[in-house]
């Protein structure tokens, strides 16, 4: 069931600001290939084929949670996850403070924190650590969400907006923090893992959402729609093994996009009395070149419609759940949107599933 319909008279929550941060340790794709080449050579014969796989994802480089030379020493899940907790907490605080500052708010104004990730685990969760570090109120509500993967940026927006429909005076943060480099299984020399190590990067984003009765400075979240594709559990995800998260990745992802996304988006828009050409601003998750091409061809988008997604992919790679929020932030800050403009935020992730969010300036 959609979160709202065109007949729903309830006023909508708004998106006030998006904070974004990348860890300081940058490595170009060629530096990463050079660092991984010796490892690949322990199993693989045709290294040029593997280098091509890394180059074909069209990513120029990635920001890493740690300096490149520190990764080989992280041999256990505990070592990687401890590093994840430390860096994820630091980056999450940075983006939350940045987003609140851009929205003209303080930590005391926050009523609910939604924290999404799929790259590390912590209890107390990272959002709890932020309560202490940032001085959030003692009555702040927290919803840590693990496992939605790449879809969690869009799904997190939708769930935070759902919450604010019940509490229209309140303010929520959606924090998406992903340190994909710390999930890399060095001993997994499978092709899916080698592709993943070429595509995924590290970063964090935070969106400030405000209920309908709070002052709005950005577009409103008019509605959202989840779509689940039955019997696609092996398309994408983790096999959780003794050493951590071993990637499951299938080439069916772009195929699913091409087969389903048009019908999904058209159906969603129709619930709001809209058609594809009514949408002026597209905010698409940077899944990879084939996923973005799939969005463009299935939705028959105008050239340049996903330019910000392509640019983000090339500059920093796929940041899992944070990616779509990076593109959303750039859209809010760069686009000369007019009051009344419609936008769609969309992402896909393990399940396999999709989430679409309709926004209006």
């Amino acid at each position, binding site marked *: 069931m959609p979160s709202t319909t065109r007949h729903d008279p309830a006023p909508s929550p708004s998106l006030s600001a998006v904070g974004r941060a990348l860890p300081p340790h940058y490595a170009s794709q060629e530096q990463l290939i050079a660092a991984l080449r010796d490892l690949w050579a322990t*199993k*693989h*014969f*045709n290294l040029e*084929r*593997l280098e091509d*796989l890394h180059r074909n994802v069209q990513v120029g480089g990635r920001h890493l949670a740690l300096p490149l030379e520190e990764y080989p020493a992280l041999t256990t899940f505990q070592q990687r996850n401890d590093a994840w907790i430390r860096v994820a907490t630091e980056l999450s605080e940075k983006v939350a403070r940045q987003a609140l500052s851009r929205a003209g708010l303080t930590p005391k104004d926050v009523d609910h924190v939604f924290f999404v990730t799929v790259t590390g685990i912590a209890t107390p969760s990272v959002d709890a650590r932020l309560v202490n570090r940032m001085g959030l109120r003692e009555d702040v509500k927290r919803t840590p969400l693990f496992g939605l993967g790449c879809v969690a940026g869009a799904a997190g927006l939708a769930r935070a907006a759902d919450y604010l429909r019940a509490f229209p005076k309140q303010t929520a943060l959606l924090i998406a923090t992903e340190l994909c480099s710390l999930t890399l299984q060095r001993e997994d020399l*499978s*092709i*899916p893992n080698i*592709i993943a190590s070429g595509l995924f990067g590290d970063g964090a984003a935070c969106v400030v959402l405000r209920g309908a009765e709070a002052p709005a400075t950005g577009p409103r979240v008019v509605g959202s729609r989840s779509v689940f594709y039955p019997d696609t559990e*092996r398309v994408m995800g983790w096999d959780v093994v003794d050493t951590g998260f071993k990637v499951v*990745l*299938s*080439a*069916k992802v772009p*195929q699913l996009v091409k087969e389903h996304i048009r019908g999904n988006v058209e159906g969603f828009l129709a619930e709001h009395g809209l058609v594809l050409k009514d949408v002026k601003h597209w905010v698409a998750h940077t899944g990879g070149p084939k996923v973005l091409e799939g969005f463009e061809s299935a939705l028959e988008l105008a050239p340049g419609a996903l330019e910000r997604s392509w640019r983000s992919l090339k500059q920093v790679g796929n940041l899992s759940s944070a990616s779509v929020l990076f593109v959303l932030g750039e859209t809010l800050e760069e686009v000369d949107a007019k009051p009344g403009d419609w936008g769609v935020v969309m992402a896909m992730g393990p399940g396999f599933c999709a989430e679409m969010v309709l926004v209006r300036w």
Partner: protein
Amino acid sequence: MADIVTEAVAEIRRIAREELEFEGAVEPAHDLLRDLQLDSLGLTVLAVGLENRFRVLLSEEDAQGVRTVEDLARLVAARVEAAKPDAGAHP
């Protein structure tokens, strides 16, 4: 050469089952795309597995005439033969 073809078919079976989670039968006459349901990633996994096992290079140009499991196994066998130090020394 026939031995290598047989070995290559066995290796294709192993890769399909263990690395590609393919549960059906793999026979020499089976079509790689239609019967084994391989997509671009699956074909890459298969090619890399064969290159590693037989220490040969398979290129996209090589793959032009390859449609079935047997075609692929014969291509691997031809590459193995060509890579032998005395290849071409005998009439």
